[in-house]
């Protein structure tokens, strides 16, 4: 049973098209990279997958449930979906709203009804994983761009979602931090999480991604290749490098 299935899914913004008739199946445990030019629909797809927006046409199935506006209007069902899917926004500014970094990360776990000790354990772990331990007592909105990005990731990780959606998580990180993040993501995948990540930099994600979905500027999927296949196609790799 696939984890997520899109069938002829389209999404229209008020005046523009966001996605155009996508067909896509994602299995649990995959590491998928979304690539494509600016404005091709990567962020839009992640919004659909996370249930922030619902398809204008076509269907989206998550765990064999059709996700519609109706489905999402049921608070309990929406909550269940959100527990399983974590999204790190492209603009992480909007994601941080608590008065301190520690509280930001504790926000999710606390809702789950974990004990105080468990919550603080999670906070410490997540901050360590994303190298934010020193920022613990800082105010999120007063951080530098890259710091915000890492805190946002930590706050999503703390929920331990089984599907992680990441919208250009490498942007604004130093090369070292990028490497560290990619390693972390591979580990998470090994631990059974599904990871879907939008990125521009094929070179960086090449090593970790197992499947590459390439959008074109018509908001459609141009190609959907497995990493193993790609490894045998050097000319395609070269083309992706200069996307």
């Amino acid at each position, binding site marked *: 049973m696939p984890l997520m299935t899109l069938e002829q899914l389209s999404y229209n913004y008020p005046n523009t098209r966001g996605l155009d008739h996508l067909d896509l199946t994602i299995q649990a445990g995959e590491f998928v990279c979304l690539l494509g030019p600016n404005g091709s629909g990567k962020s839009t797809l992640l919004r659909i997958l996370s249930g922030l927006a619902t398809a204008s046409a076509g269907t989206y199935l998550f765990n064999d449930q059709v996700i519609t506006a109706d489905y999402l209007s049921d608070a309990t069902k929406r909550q269940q979906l959100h527990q399983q899917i974590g999204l790190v926004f492209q603009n992480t500014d909007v994601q941080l709203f608590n*008065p301190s970094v520690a509280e930001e990360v504790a926000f999710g776990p606390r809702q789950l009804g974990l004990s105080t000790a468990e919550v603080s354990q999670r906070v410490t772990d997540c901050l360590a994983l994303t190298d934010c331990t020193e920022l613990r007592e800082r*105010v999120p*909105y*007063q951080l530098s761009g890259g710091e915000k990005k890492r805190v946002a990731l930590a706050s999503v990780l703390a929920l331990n979602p089984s599907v992680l959606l990441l919208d250009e998580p490498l942007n604004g990180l130093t090369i070292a931090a990028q490497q560290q993040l990619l390693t972390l993501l591979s580990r998470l995948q090994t631990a059974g999480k599904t990871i879907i990540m939008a990125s521009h930099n094929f070179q960086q994600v090449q090593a970790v991604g197992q499947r590459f979905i390439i959008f074109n500027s018509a908001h459609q999927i141009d190609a959907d290749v497995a990493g193993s296949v790609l490894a045998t196609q050097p000319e395609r790799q070269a083309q992706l490098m200069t996307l």
Partner: protein
Amino acid sequence: MHIPDNYLSPATCGTLAVAMAPIWTVAVLKVKVQIKQHRETLPMLGIAAALAFLIMMFNLPIPGGTTAHAVGGTLLAVLIGPWAACLALTVTLLLQALLFGDGGILAFGANAFNMAFIMPFVGYACYRLGQKLHHEKLGLAIGAYLGINIAALVAGIELGLQPLLAHTASGAPLYCPYGLNIAVPAMLAAHLLVAGWVELVFTLLVYQFVQKVAPTNLYQTTPKTSQRPWFYLLGGLALLTPLGLLASNTAWGEWSPSELKHLLVQQHVGSTVPQGMAHGFHFQALFSDYAIAGLPVSVGYILSALTAILIFLLLIRGLQHDQSTFKN
């Protein structure tokens, strides 16, 4: 609390708009000084206006299962200073009236008076008083609650005076049909019981957040300023009273019952003279236990103008007190 159009007579609207004029003038002058010191004040004004708009459209859950929204007058006064808040709220109200149909266009002056003047200033005065007594949060809470309730009271009075100020020869009200005995309790009950608490909780929580995260972003008071603007304001109000008298006495196009019957018959709406018209005294009877009802309209108007001035004096008193204590 946005009063829509046609609830207030044009005379009342005009009076309140003119009453706002000196306040706006002072606010613009004050804010210009503020801009000189902190140039971010100018964009901040616009942003505060946008913020107020968002606050007013944000539905907050209340225990009964329904929702209410806060106005944020007191909160803005504490965040950016009362004068700037006055201007920002004015802009919000203008925007709502002209582009979003929230609150009347003619009634703009009245709405500005209630929500852009009374609310922030009452709230701010309480906050400063609390600050002086080292209970600023208590002051803020009381200010938020009092601010919205006094504004509601004034709105209720404005509405409730209409049947007295503007009615046809036979006594049928031309604008807001509810007298003081209905308008004031209705406005007050809604705000004392629900809206006031919503405003209080909302104000406190946002304030707490800002204070915890970035205390320097709260409005820092500047030392004492002159009292003169207040007297201009009072003078203006006093001058306006006769003007209101002129405008409010009778209505044009006397709307006699027989004429109306004719009109209504023509439109197949009804063939008898409407109840309220035929028994115009019913209306009077409703107000019979009201002392004002027996008085000529002009006296009633003067009384209400006096009441308004008195409320102002009380307000000023509050501000004065805390300003002079700030000096030491």
